[in-house]
């Protein structure tokens, strides 16, 4: 019983709980939720926000915040698609190139923030404007509706095709979904199994303590922004491949979507706490909700309203949990203080 209680007190479990309730409501209202093709569609739709959320999560854990990533990756993506316009070699090369460009842009963010200890919100707000400015003003970015030939094979690859026997509709899970799976596994290993991951948590939780035990706080912070840049760059290329079209403004405003997924998944805004599994629940919750309101007969006018309500419930619950846990924590600390006094 205690174990269940403990499980329920985790911020992730709340997100999971709303997600399950949502699934059931959608199934009851439409009778179409638990069909193979619907699940396939939803899985495919997690790819882009999911990859971005992993980078965002790592930045949050390190105690930072990055809102510039949609601008950053639109810029990196445009440069990549332009440079590799007539390239016919392996698809890995444009991906590596895009990661390099976006990683450098992320490093630019990270160095300014970590070196001068500016508020990350202000810095990334500024660099966001800067990146959009470069993209539109200097590069005069335009829509690219035919992607380079090297992407074709990956773009056309399909993991499975699910057909709904009743309606005859078939949905495909595109090959790029595997990239999402790969990014999730890597992030999870990085955070859970490596020394670097532990350092990230340490820096986000208490930077001065981390510094005292000899962690290079500066580089840990910078590296988090580099990772955020790289994941966003990969996500941008994946998005272009799924829809077969690159548009410079397609990801405009996407940061709010991704950040709310990460926060709903129980990640702390002040750093040091968050998990890959919670973030995935956040992605599933918001994305499923966005994509199922039509299925549930919610009129288009009301869809934004519903999204808002569920987000308020979710975020206020995580905030409540955080408040409670910090209260217990300070309670424990007070008790220790008392004990210290007693000893004295």
């Amino acid at each position: 019983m205690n174990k269940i209680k403990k499980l329920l007190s985790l911020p992730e479990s709340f997100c999971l709980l709303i997600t399950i309730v949502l699934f059931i409501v959608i199934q009851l209202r439409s009778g179409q939720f638990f069909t193979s093709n619907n699940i396939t569609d939803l899985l495919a739709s997690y790819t882009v926000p999911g990859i971005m959320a992993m980078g965002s999560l790592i930045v949050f854990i390190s105690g930072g915040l990055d809102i510039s990533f949609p601008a950053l990756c639109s810029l990196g993506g445009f440069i990549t698609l332009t440079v590799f316009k007539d390239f016919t070699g392996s698809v890995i090369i444009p991906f590596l190139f895009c990661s390099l460009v976006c990683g450098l842009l992320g490093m630019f963010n990270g160095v300014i923030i970590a070196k001068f200890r500016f508020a990350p919100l202000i810095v990334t707000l500024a660099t966001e404007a800067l990146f959009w400015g470069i993209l539109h003003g200097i590069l005069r970015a335009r829509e690219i509706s035919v992607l380079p030939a090297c992407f074709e094979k990956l773009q056309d690859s399909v993991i499975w095709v699910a057909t709904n026997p009743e309606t005859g509709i078939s949905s495909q899970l595109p090959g790029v979904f595997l990239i999402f799976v790969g990014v999730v596994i890597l992030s999870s290993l990085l955070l859970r199994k490596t020394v670097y991951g532990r350092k990230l948590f340490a820096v986000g939780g208490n930077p001065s303590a981390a510094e005292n035990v000899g962690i290079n706080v500066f580089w840990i912070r910078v590296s988090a922004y580099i990772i955020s840049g790289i994941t966003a760059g990969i996500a941008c290329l994946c998005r272009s491949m799924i829809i077969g079209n690159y548009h410079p403004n397609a990801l405009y405003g996407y940061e709010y979507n991704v950040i709310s997924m990460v926060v709903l998944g129980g990640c702390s805004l002040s750093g040091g706490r968050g998990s890959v599994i919670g973030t995935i629940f956040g992605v599933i919750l918001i994305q499923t909700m966005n994509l199922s309101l039509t299925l549930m007969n919610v009129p288009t006018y009301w869809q934004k309203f519903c999204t808002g309500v569920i987000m308020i419930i979710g975020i206020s619950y995580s905030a409540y949990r955080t408040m409670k846990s910090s209260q217990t924590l300070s309670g424990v600390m007070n008790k220790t203080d008392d004990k210290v006094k007693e000893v004295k």
Partner: protein
Amino acid sequence: MKKVLCLLLSVAMVLSLAACGGSSAPAASTETQAAAEAPAAAKKDYKIALVGGETSSEWYMRVEKCINDYREETGINATFNGPATSDPTETVSLIKDLISQKVDALIINVDCQDAVEPALKDAREAGILVISTEGTGMTNRDYDVEPCDNKYYGEYMMQGLAKQMGEKGKYVVMVGDLTSTSHNAWADAAIAYQKENYPDMELIDERLESQVNAEVAYERAKEILKKYPDLGGILGCSSFDPLGASKAIKELGLDCKTFGNGTMLTDEEVLKDGTLEAITFWDPGLTAKATCNLAVMILDNGGKGDGVVKNGMDLGYEGYDNCTVDGVCIYGNALVYGTVDNFDEYPF
């Protein structure tokens, strides 16, 4: 050091903003050149500024190119000004800048029409001739030029869709934005036309919103097709709707048709691989040129449209040579049926 960097960052921000408005800056230099080259045509020394939508879209790039051509062809000082994103505040400040530059005429071709109304009121009070295009619902303007009237456009789209669907089956309408005046007027006209002329077609009464984004159009189309697998047609009003919808139809392997507003470049892939049969659009550059001509005609007439604006008037370009006038709205007849065959004629 911190202060220096703070300063650098803010400079960077300002610079990036300046870069966003980059389209108007180089135009300003050519402005003076054009004015210098045509001193004889003193009568025609008007400053005409067109305010368009986001400069990254092919649509507005076409407008920009045609305005630049117009300036070269006629020697009239016409410029294109557009924001980098679809954020209305950026457009409003652009209009305010143009008012303080004392242009003679403003041509407004934007999506965020309600947001710019107050700024346009200021412009008119400052004595500037304001002409809107694609904005029949606007109020603070002297005249409005349309490639065709909204009713005709809606009916035209419905005819195209009905032909592809064999005049029977269920269909649904997708608009870019539920608040877009033009999209919803087309949709209403299309639906009314269907009810009158195609009794075997049935409207699914849900207006989908694609947020003028191909990815959203694709997701919405997939959802509605899941709910109504026997759907026969999707009428798309935003220029990204046919792309998104036809991708969804292709993926789901259904026999559903899409017709609507598109552009050749956006739909290049799906038109060429046969997923999408046809799209319709007008040439926004031609509308812009015709509107510039209208502005010159009115300015020549001392800023008054009386006597100049009348039924059957000729704005000097194909499709605008025999316009219909209804109040302050001037309608041309300039729709294009775009298929893979006339692809190369419309490079935007």
